[in-house]
């Protein structure tokens, strides 16, 4: 196996495109190393992206949004007070990935590119309408996060594509987001179901909403019907009931060692209800 440490995303893209055999990018490494250890993925080339300028940075964009470097760990996201104030749901999703030790290494981009339908940080990014900047052979482009996963373990990224940054939109006034997942244990577990909601209120009324669910379909899924159930409501019982129905209708999970399809669907609805209440409280500026 050859180990590369390019100093620009363009070089990384070129390296990946020209390499023969199996190639993997290394950011936090918390998935790649596990795959290497188990022998399921034995790369011929490993391209370490951590040394590329900007990879470790969290910066405010000119429009008031955020650009998060591809090698920023979960621990650093959690320590960034301003980012947490803007997008608590995005950060709490990432912070649920693995242990304190894993948090010291794991990254948003890694969690996204691993392609797991149960990736804890992805529903929050999708609900937040985040996008990724991709450096490819033909230049740089920006793509919504929800367009990256293609199925379990698969992404829509093409050979030579390397994600070079994550972009979060400006939070704006009266917005709030939240993420919860269900796991049998309190920690150290893979989501059996997850739900993230980002919304905005005007007074008590929800004016904008995005709802994303995880671990209940081959990819993390945006659920427009669930958002519609919330928009225009004051998160009354009828709206919550409609939200739960819409979320459950969007679920298409599998039975596996982590839970039955029926259980995942039921719990996704329960989580949607709980998450909506937290996001709503945050949007209204209530302490959460």
């Amino acid at each position, binding site marked *: 196996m050859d180990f590369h440490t390019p100093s620009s995303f363009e070089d990384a893209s070129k390296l990946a495109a020209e390499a023969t055999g199996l190639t993997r990018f290394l950011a936090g490494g918390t998935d790649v190393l596990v795959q290497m*250890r188990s022998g399921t993925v034995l790369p011929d080339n490993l391209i370490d992206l951590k040394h590329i300028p900007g990879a470790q940075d969290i910066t405010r964009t000119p429009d008031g949004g955020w650009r998060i470097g591809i090698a920023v760990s979960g621990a650093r996201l959690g320590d960034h007070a301003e980012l947490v104030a803007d997008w608590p749901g995005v950060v709490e999703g990432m912070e649920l990935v693995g242990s304190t030790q894993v948090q010291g290494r794991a990254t948003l981009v890694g969690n996204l590119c691993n392609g797991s339908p149960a990736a804890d940080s992805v529903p929050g990014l999708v609900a937040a309408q985040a996008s990724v900047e991709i450096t490819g052979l033909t230049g740089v482009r920006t793509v919504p996060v929800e367009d990256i996963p293609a199925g379990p373990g698969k992404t829509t990224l093409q050979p030579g594509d390397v994600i070079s940054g994550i972009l979060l939109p400006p939070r704006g006034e009266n917005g709030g987001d939240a993420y919860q997942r269900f796991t*049998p*244990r309190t920690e150290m577990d893979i989501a*059996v179901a997850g739900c993230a909601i980002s919304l905005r209120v005007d007074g008590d009324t929800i004016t904008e909403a995005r709802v994303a669910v995880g671990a209940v379909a081959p990819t993390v899924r945006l659920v427009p019907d669930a958002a519609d159930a919330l928009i225009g409501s004051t998160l009354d019982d009828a709206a919550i009931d409609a939200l739960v129905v819409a979320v459950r209708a969007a679920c298409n999970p599998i039975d596996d060692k*982590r839970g039955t399809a029926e259980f995942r669907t039921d719990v996704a609805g329960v989580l949607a209800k709980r998450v909506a209440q937290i996001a709503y409280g945050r949007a209204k500026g209530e302490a959460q």
Partner: protein
Amino acid sequence: MPKDEIKDFRLVGTRPNRPDGLDKVTGRARYGADITAPGMLWGAVLRSPHAHAKILKIDTSKAEALSGVKAVVTRADFPTGLTGEDWNLQENTMAGEKALYDGHAIAAVAATSSQIAQEAVRLIEVEYEVLPHVTDVDDAIKPDAPVIREGAADATVPEGMPPNVVKYFEFGRGDVDAGFKDADLVMERTYKTEATHQGYIEPHACLGQLGADGKGEMWVCTQGQWYIRQMCSAVLGLNAAQLRVTPSEIGGGFGGKTTIFMEPLSLALSQKAGGRPVKIVMSRSEVLRATGPTASASMDVKIGMTKDGKLTAARAEFRMQGGAFPGAPVDMALYCCLAPYKIDNVEHIGYDVLANRPKCAAYRAPGSPMGAFAVESLIDEMCRKLDLDPMDVRLKNAVREGDQASYGPTFGSIGLAEVLEATAKHPNLSAPLGPNQGRGVASGYWFNHSGETSVSLAISEDGNAQVSVGTPDIGGSRASIALMVAETLGIAYEDVRVNVVETGSLGVNEPTHGSRATFASGKAATVAARAAIKEMCRRAANEWGIDEEAVEWVEGAAQPAGPNAGEFPPMSIKEIAKNMGKTGGPISGHHESVPEGVGASFGCHVVDVEVDPETGHTKILRYLVVQDAGRAIHPSYVEGQYQGGAVQGIGWALNEEYVYGDDGRLQNPIFLDYRMPVASDLPMIDTQIVEVPNPGHPFGVRGVGETGITPPLPAIANAIQGATGVRMSHLPMTPTKVLAALKASQE
């Protein structure tokens, strides 16, 4: 020691720092994988991806051709003609004609680096003919189930039994049908428990060396170095005394390190590689796929109870699979399940069934947790039905000294009633419960064990004591043995060094299993210390010119036994030791026996849970362990055993299980999916040590290690019924299962 004798000890019952503490908090303690040797090679093992398959051909040529590979072994390199358990061990070490489970070893490689060894394993080509498989116990006992091994049944199995039944048990007394007629309520239920793993954090590791002359050495993490020696010798056809086995520090065992897995492979590879030492360290997935988890069980229990809570009869019929080899602890489960109860009419039936899973090993009170889950769940349900207090019913039917146990023998001194009385008085039993919260209680039992024991003790030149024991220290036994020896010799705790020694240093010892180390090695060490005392008294008597019977040992010194014996100042152990070269040579003591007087241990647990009605998630709010220790030599480590056992039981009850797919492969061979409790899942684990001294031990010790894993399974099921009204009869009680049961109950 009489039951009512309360003795003040100088050291026993105190909580000094453990002797191996410093090494273990600084990273210096050397475990199985921490040793290297000159010229060392790294071993790796190829394992079957199939649950059941004929091995048609193994081609190792590409692996052998890889640069750096020094040896490759397959079953063809092992001696033939073994029978009985020796054959089972050999077959489990490396597959012969068939792969019997996902993870079964097929070939092994030794190479100059771990990476090369792994690469070589991937180059071995195996042709399999995949066979139908079976992993579930209820499927495996069907008459038309895939046959794991023809002719494996022993003489206990009656004609006409299904082909995978290899042992059959039937015992009881009284007239159960008459007993059921005398009952006001008779209930019968079926329960299932899934296989779990001991989950020790240290994967198996060994460093083995074997020459062409049949002389070998091994460094290995094990609970029993003599077992390793005997089993490796049997499997490889070696002379046992020519193999010297040194136990490393051991990173947990819980029964799972009382047998062999890849140890013979390191020796076979070493011999083939010209005697170079070979280190093999298992990965976690190898540990989960291919070491020895517990059996899984399917159990029918029928109990009769009068309306005032008297048990009139009980019938237990248990089916267990313990993998592709005989040895599921169905007999132990049957012996233990009704042990806390005085019942005149009992019937026990058991089936040991083969399935395509790894060979089960011991796990903390093997069998007892499954049996307790069934019996203690049903008794609780019956108490609820009859509106009886479950503590009252347990006390009313509790066995006491002199009662005949459900499985036959008569109990000597036991402390069940004392445990139940202490439990009933504990404040946890009256803590208020909120909505969706429930409380469960359950009892548990383990016989405890003695076994072959050999200990030697020597007085050093400066009057300290060194003790050589053969039972590896897993949970603080160096501390407890040092306390007992220091107490006996009348010297300071710090002046005793307890060494866990290799097989060349002592007679045969059984492993640290069966909760025996503090009982058996402790008793033998005490006897050895008394022998040394006798010798020191003799030296003093010679010096004083008086009869040795006229000398007694008081507070670490010889002194005349009374005014008639003579007027001499006490002669301290230091003085005697300093002069021993001139007074007759080294002073030592030793003891070899199977110590008698094992004391059984009963426990009772109380758990409060809260169940989330929307997700089925169970949270442990409060947990109490009350158990009879006989006497707690080092109370902190007794508490530690109680707490650790309880938490393993909590894991078994709620989330841990072996999940096999339709393809017969283990679906969850990593800690992410084999869900052992993590720190944030738990509250503090409250403990209360009850001390009903065991008259069979010089300090009253009973074993304490195992009973504690037994009650959590039913106690949590009982608490969940309290919280939800739903009775869970199939472990683990995952959120998925609890929510499904809640929904079913509302339909």
